[in-house]
């Protein structure tokens, strides 16, 4: 999976584009990259994950997204998912993550 991080805006928002499949193999890499971003960006307020090219999500991927919410929220950092494909949204919805994370459909 490819992870592309855009520059952080003056308002403390950053867009991270995901391209590929989020599974037990790739989810730890995403968590590591986002954790690094949080540590290196003191004024970070919101991470927007652009999911237009995210074609697959397994339970491991969903678990990592939940861990991001749990670990970043106390730091005042919000996570948002945009352009989520129907197959990926279906998994997030069944696991209850659509109630915890702001998500926009593709």
């Amino acid at each position, binding site marked *: 999976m490819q992870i592309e991080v855009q520059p952080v805006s003056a308002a403390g928002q950053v867009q991270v584009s995901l391209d590929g499949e989020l*599974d*037990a193999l790739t989810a730890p890499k995403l968590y590591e990259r986002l954790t690094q971003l949080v540590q290196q960006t003191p004024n970070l307020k919101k991470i927007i994950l652009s999911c237009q090219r995210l074609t697959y999500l*397994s339970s*491991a991927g969903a*678990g990592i997204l*939940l*861990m991001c919410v*749990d670990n970043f929220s*106390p730091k005042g950092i919000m996570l948002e998912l945009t352009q989520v494909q129907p197959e990926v949204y*279906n998994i997030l919805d069944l696991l209850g993550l659509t109630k915890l994370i702001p998500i926009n459909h593709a």
Partner: protein
Amino acid sequence: MPKMALQFGATAENLPIIRHFVRTHLSKVVSNSLELNQITVAIEELCANSILHGNKEDAQKELRLELSVQGGEVHAYLYDPAPPYDIHSYPQEPRLLRAGTTRPGGFGIYLLRRFIDEIRVRRRKGGSSLYHLVKRLSSASEGC
């Protein structure tokens, strides 16, 4: 669809290969993309559990996945050298733990049980396992 088989080592590196195998063969009979994804997720979750937990990512351990479609039902068989675990003993709902108390849990088993109509688990001679998943296809996919 004739029975198709994939043999693979117990490493997470093989998860994309497993998904590709499932999609390639089932896309010929499952026309609904949401349903195809759900079956793919369920089979991958079963395989990932065996790879990561049952066989502790020992690439020397070989698993075999067989797929067939009969009478509007998808049948997936996973032959696993590790002893079986009781899928039905897990909680019905996933654990959405908050405030970083520990890792969330039960997502994979929950999705597997949600997407599959029947799950049969059998201990084989020598202590290995056979998991048999049955998914009845929706009318939108049947007869494709």
